[in-house]
């Protein structure tokens, strides 16, 4: 008898069909927990396994789809143990028959969108895995609609078991997962996490799955498992039925095997007859391997970036090196500023964002994790985690929703040996700097020798060459006139060997005037030499234009779509610059871009603090006044606030730090159990504009947390928001907690369901009808010293 691992990918393996359908046929009512039947009716479950084995399948799946703590409370262990026992009893009668411990989704959505914390999900799955005690032959994680949840389950499996792990995803209409990832993205992300096989189940019938299987097969060389439904569900007489009969089902499964699947089974609506027909039709088919080499790729929750023909643009701006304002943002924990840099780069054409938030005086592990979590909720680009701190790297890789780029290792063994185990566990494409203990070799041969060494070491960790990208290091030509030439030579040689390359392009121009010119020309030369990816500033039009022109000239821009698209946008922009407005008008009208240029212009002749007093504040006041008299509405008020924020940003850079004055610190949040934060965010925006420092604790914040932060930060004013009647009690509790901890702290409340009466009832000091109301109250509080 062989093990599952030995047979996987060597021959076609047949998984069983639906369990739920069989149980419903046997009289299970909707709403009853099928998992409990392992205890109440083991013979029925065993009988279903027996039917599938009799039909000829190799793998039966335990009846434990929903056997997690959320559904079964403290029965998890008992149920899973019984289920595996039932399945094992049946498989032991056959040669090469295996038990898959089944793990389905939790039914909750993970944070930040849902309320299940990532590590909590890992814990839930870990309990299931441990309950299986490795008594099954493999772990089957299935019907996952969210890659992040799948990742939690895979980590739980890997950390608590040595069994092979197989993962299948359920795709929605358009062949996409919940968060927008396509089948190729799913394949890349799952493969990165080190699963033994991956694939698709449920959601569609076999015909609709075929193109998804093809996409997966092109993106990974791992074995693929496909378990379709017997068509689409229809409800007839209150019961769900499926319409694809066994013979038809089997004929599609032949195509699925030909598309590259080597494990097939069935999901909802399939019966032992479907499986029997499928086995009959596919048993003697040869395994198909795709011709195409598996590409180098990284992913985010929704996007996949492949290192192919076109040079990949990696945005370099999230990095404190040489940036005063960025360092200040890091020290002040100003995530918004950092996130803005990310969004700007995404908008200007980056494919991947480098994230470097290391400063000696901050906790890099915490900061990198926070920034990654925040960035991946607002930017859909894959991230490149740029740190020398291994702990920070691991923590960030863990919470990252996708397969990241890792920056970096080099020829020194201590770097590869610290990072490669993490790459193996979490997946990732690693940037390899071609330097070692001796420094950067002067010749391209010397750099290539380091590349070889890194390749060898990676192979020892089981990491193939396609998961590495080599950086031959662009050095300043101002210090060595040959620097660019040697670097380009190395890029070319690596490219010829079929290896991927990356360069921090802008280093080349260091120390010379008009750096953008040299940088963009060097970028073109490097692309010509075969550069796979450039770490550049996507906000530099010159650099991006050089790249676009190169793509257009070298046949990499189909129909010149990118070139023409960006050219016509540029023309529109220049023609719109026409009439001049005062800074006051620009802010009042909410014209951020014009306000920014206006402020820069004004700063040449006017003092920064004077601009605040004579232009910004009056414009804000005017907008506030018009809002209150209802001649201007919320979107305009906010646009005005945004323009003011932009101008403040410009001005902040020109005032020495100690001169920047805050009118006072205000702490705000949405109360416990409430996840609505739009109103709170609006209040925050306005308060910040009026010069207050706002500490935003976010949403769903416990009363104790608010009280603790109020005390530790010596807060004089707290703003609480609640949208639902059901969460107002938590607002009341929060008011009480703050009162007990800091009797002098004032509390203002607001939110859709609140009224003055409610506010009085729960003991708040002030009720704000809208965001301006909060500003007015803040002015009142802080005017009293």
């Amino acid at each position, binding site marked *: 008898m062989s093990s599952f691992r030995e047979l996987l990918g060597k021959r076609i393996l047949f998984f069983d069909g639906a369990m739920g359908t069989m149980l419903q046929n046997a009289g299970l009512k909707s*709403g009853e927990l099928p998992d409990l039947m392992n205890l109440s009716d083991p013979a029925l479950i065993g009988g279903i396994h027996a039917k599938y084995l009799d039909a000829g399948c190799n793998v039966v799946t335990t009846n434990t789809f929903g056997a997690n703590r959320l559904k079964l409370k403290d029965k998890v262990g008992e149920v899973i143990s019984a289920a595996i026992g039932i399945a094992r009893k049946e498989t032991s009668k056959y040669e090469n028959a295996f038990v898959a411990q089944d793990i389905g989704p939790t039914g*909750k959505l993970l944070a930040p*969108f849902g309320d299940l914390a990532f590590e909590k999900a890992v814990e839930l799955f870990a309990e299931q895995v441990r309950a299986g005690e490795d008594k099954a032959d493999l772990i089957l994680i299935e019907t996952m609609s969210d890659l992040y949840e799948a990742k939690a389950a895979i980590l739980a499996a890997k950390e608590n078991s040595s069994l092979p792990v197989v993962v299948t995803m359920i795709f929605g209409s358009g062949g996409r997962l*919940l968060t927008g990832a396509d089948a190729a993205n799913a394949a890349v992300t799952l493969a990165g996490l080190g699963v033994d096989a991956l694939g698709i189940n449920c959601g569609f019938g076999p015909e609709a799955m075929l193109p998804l299987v093809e996409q997966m097969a092109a993106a990974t060389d791992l074995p693929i498992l496909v378990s379709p439904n017997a068509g689409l569900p229809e409800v007839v007489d209150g019961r769900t039925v499926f319409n694809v009969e066994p013979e038809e089902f089997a004929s599609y499964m032949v195509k699925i095997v030909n598309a590259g699947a080597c494990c097939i089974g069935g999901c909802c609506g399939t019966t032992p007859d479907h499986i029997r027909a499928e086995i009959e039709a596919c048993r003697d088919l040869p395994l198909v391997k795709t011709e195409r080499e598996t590409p180098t790729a990284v992913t985010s929750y929704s996007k996949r970036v492949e290192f192919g023909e076109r040079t990949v643009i990696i945005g370099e701006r999230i990095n404190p090196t040489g940036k005063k304002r960025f360092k200040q943002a890091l020290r002040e924990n100003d995530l918004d500023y950092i*996130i803005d840099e990310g969004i700007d780069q995404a908008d200007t054409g980056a494919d991947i964002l480098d994230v470097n938030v290391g400063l000696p005086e901050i906790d890099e592990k915490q900061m990198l994790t926070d920034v990654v979590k925040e960035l991946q909720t607002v930017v859909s680009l894959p991230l490149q985690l740029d740190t020398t701190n291994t702990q920070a790297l691991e923590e960030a890789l863990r919470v990252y929703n996708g397969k990241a780029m890792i920056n970096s290792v080099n020829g020194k063994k201590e770097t590869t040996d610290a990072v490669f185990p993490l790459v193996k566990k979490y997946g990732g494409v690693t940037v390899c700097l071609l330097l070692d203990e001796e420094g950067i070799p002067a010749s391209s041969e010397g750099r290539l020798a380091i590349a070889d060494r890194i390749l060898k070491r990676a192979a020892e960790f089981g990491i193939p060459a396609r998961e590495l990208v080599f950086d031959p290091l662009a050095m300043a030509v101002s210090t060595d006139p040959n620097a660019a030439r040697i670097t380009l030579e190395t890029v070319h040689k690596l490219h010829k060997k079929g290896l991927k390359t990356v360069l921090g392009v802008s280093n080349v121009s260091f120390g010379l005037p008009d750096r953008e010119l040299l940088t963009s020309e060097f970028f073109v030369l490097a692309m010509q030499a075969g550069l796979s990816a450039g770490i550049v500033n996507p906000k530099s039009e010159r650099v991006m234009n050089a790249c676009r022109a190169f793509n257009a000239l070298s046949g990499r821009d189909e129909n010149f779509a990118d070139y023409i698209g960006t050219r016509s946008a540029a023309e529109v922009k220049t023609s719109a610059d026409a009439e001049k407005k005062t800074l006051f008008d620009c802010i009042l009208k909410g014209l951020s871009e014009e306000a920014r240029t206006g402020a820069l212009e004004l700063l040449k002749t006017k003092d920064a603090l004077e601009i605040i007093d004579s232009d910004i504040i009056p414009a804000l006041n005017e907008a506030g006044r018009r809002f209150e008299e209802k001649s201007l*509405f919320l979107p305009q008020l906010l646009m005005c606030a945004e323009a003011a924020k932009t101008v403040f940003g410009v001005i902040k850079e020109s005032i020495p730090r100690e001169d920047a004055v805050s009118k006072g610190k205000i702490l705000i949040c949405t109360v416990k*159990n409430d996840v609505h934060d*739009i109103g709170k965010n609006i209040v925050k925006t306005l308060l910040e504009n009026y010069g207050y420092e706002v500490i935003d604790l976010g949403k769903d914040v416990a009363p104790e947390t608010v009280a603790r932060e109020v005390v530790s930060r010596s807060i004089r004013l707290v703003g609480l928001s609640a949208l639902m009647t059901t969460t107002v009690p938590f607002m009341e509790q929060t008011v009480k907690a703050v009162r007990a901890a800091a009797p002098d702290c004032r509390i203002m409340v607001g939110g859709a369901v609140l009224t003055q009466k409610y506010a009085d009832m729960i003991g708040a000091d002030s009720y704000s009808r809208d965001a301006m109301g909060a500003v007015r109250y803040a002015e009142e509080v802080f005017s009293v010293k």
Partner: protein
Amino acid sequence: MNERNILRYLHISGEPDDQTRELIEECIREAKMQIEPKRVYRVYDITREENGISLDGTLFEGEQIRHRLMGFDQCAVFAVTLGIGGDLLVRRYSSVQPSKAAVMHAVLADMTESVCDLTEAQIRKGPPAYETGVRFSPGYPGLPLDYQPLIFNMLEITKRIGITLTESNFMIPHKSVTAFMGVKEKHYEQFSGVVGKKNFVF
């Protein structure tokens, strides 16, 4: 799309200025690319209980629900969602461009209403054709959020259209609605169904 509703959600009375109008149009364009409206519904026979009503064995306790379904023998239960794309959009803009987040929120709220209206129309059309009452949702006064897990279970909402419940029974994606609606059959046939559609035309 109903611009009047969008303006109402934004508390704008009268005509919006050009910039706001532009922002609304921009949001509608972006939202249409990102949302993936889905719905699931079923029609149940109503069994009146002492302390509420039950639908296919699931008891909904409360006077309000009994009252609102007075005069109907059957009740349609449905759930609609715009998918997580809507949440992503609001989140993306909430820190960098709150004005757009606010407008986006209003646009998405209106789109959610539209999907509810379309679902209602679909139920009315049948077959069989139904006369329908006014729809109402958990969270309305007297209709506790505790109904949510029951509805989720009955319609297999998480599995079919991907809405999940938080511990306090809020729905995620946020732009989702569950609702009850009294219905009266015009003909006598059983009917119910599941529809998932991308690129919904509004």
